């Protein structure tokens, strides 16, 4: 599955899709493949402040619990409630299964994130190690 070119990516395997001052955040297809069957997602409540590089929740698969890292700083405006009962949506289509929507604190933070091509290269290098 290709990585959408209009998204930005982190080395911790989150994606962020920004639209002006708003953005949605999820995990990449590569992340869901490594995790395996996802059984639970622990997400913050709307109104929570999240900080770039800090954890904002966790994703639990049958193998492990992994932290979710905020790609940028901002405030949570919406949480994808569907994932509470159907976390497998992340396995089915990671790039459309958004986890949280946020308002950005500083849109310039997006510039320091990886592009689709950079992320693809990063994943390939990581896998080759």
């Amino acid at each position, binding site marked *: 599955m290709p990585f959408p070119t209009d998204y930005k990516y982190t080395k911790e395997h989150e994606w962020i899709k920004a639209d002006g001052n708003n953005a949605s955040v999820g995990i990449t297809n590569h992340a869901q493949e490594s995790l395996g069957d996802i059984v*639970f997602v622990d997400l913050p409540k709307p109104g929570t402040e999240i900080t770039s590089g800090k954890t904002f929740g966790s994703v*639990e698969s*049958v193998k*492990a*619990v992994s*932290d979710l890292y905020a790609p940028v700083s901002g405030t949570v405006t919406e949480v994808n409630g569907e994932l509470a009962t159907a976390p497998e949506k992340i396995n089915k289509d990671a790039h459309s299964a958004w986890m949280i929507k946020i308002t950005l604190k500083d849109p310039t933070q997006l510039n320091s994130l990886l592009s689709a091509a950079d992320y693809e290269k990063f994943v390939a290098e990581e896998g080759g190690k």
Partner: protein
Amino acid sequence: MLQAMGARSIDDLFSPIPAEYRLERDLKVPRQMAESEIVDWFRERSRENGESNATFLGAGAYYHYRPVIIDSLISRGEFLTAYTPYQAEISQGTLQAIFEFQTMICELTGMEVANASMYDGSTAAAEAVMMAARLTGRRSVIIARSVHPEYREVLTTYAHHQNLPLSTTSFKDNGRLNLEELERSITPDTACVLIQSPNFLGTIEDADAIADIVHKKGAMLVVSIAEAVSLGIVEPPRQADVIAMEAQSFGVPLGFGGPYCGVIATREQFVRQMPGRLAGQTTDRNGKRGFVLTLATREQHIRREKATSNICTNQALVALMVNVFMTIYGKVGLKELAKQNLAKTAYAAAQFGKHAKILFPGSPRFNEFVVQTSEDPYAINSRILGHKIVGGLPLKKFYPELGNAALWCCTELTTRSAIDTAVGLVAESERSMKSAKEEVDAQEVVR
């Protein structure tokens, strides 16, 4: 060995130690004994144990009957040697036993999920409190002063490095929590309120009323149960968010403080913040019923420093004792057992009440009650020990305001003759102290 080290003698080896610090004589240890002498020595010592004594001690460690089949079953090699059953393929028996344990604990407590298990009732209570802090995101805890004082000490230790301020809330003259004070003390930062029921003073709390107050303020209610047998007749605190229990009463022997068997039971929605082992039932590829450890992804062997808890091992063998006990007694047997405890305690409290003051009247109790005397309870205890009776626990060091008070406990193993003897011995001194006091009073009137 000296040769290999290049030392000429033992003295040479110790030469770096200044002469004045060296011991110039033999150590004062007894001479060696033959094995037969050692066996004799220990036999002699074991006769000094008070095994035939009647005991009225409870306070978190209860003397109940242990069916003989418990030790026969847990001594089976498969159980006795089992460690954490990571490999489901070779651990079906252990996993099934754990699953049954959890199921019966849920039935007993009215909760939806239970783990198997924690170290003891105190660590279970502490872990339950940590759970509430994680779930609510709030950072302070209120503990009833009627919770076992040693459980409160364990909590203080736990909270010390967790940046979790603890405060206590008091009890009333009837032994129950002061609800008005409780309501006032809950703040928007209170993660949970921890109570014990039956509490340390033997009183059964009004858990429903407490739950209403706590929930209204958005906090969680953790209920500690130190005497598991009470669940045979006392309504479980179903309104609690977490129940932290000590299951020692169910077939675990009393011995120098352990091992015990802590349990946490909670609602399904909180399962991911519950520490400890959890066995689940599933079906294998051939559709046959099987058991596996489940929800282990938050445990420290997988998540290290981010684990839900660092309580790292379970008490499978001790939990198995509890499991066998619950199976043998069953619903009817447990109820009957609880009734016997209740009846003996009611009789004992009534008898003591004729000669001394029973504190906290008017509230329901299970198998413990507080007796206040004129005589110092330590003095009473050393006096009645001569009659092969272990008296109640003096409460002075925990609750100095109660004066000469002691916590007495009766179980199904307490005989009526032991109760009558103990009451008789306490009554003797109460009468003489009372008449001595009356004499003094009379003299003062004369003056």
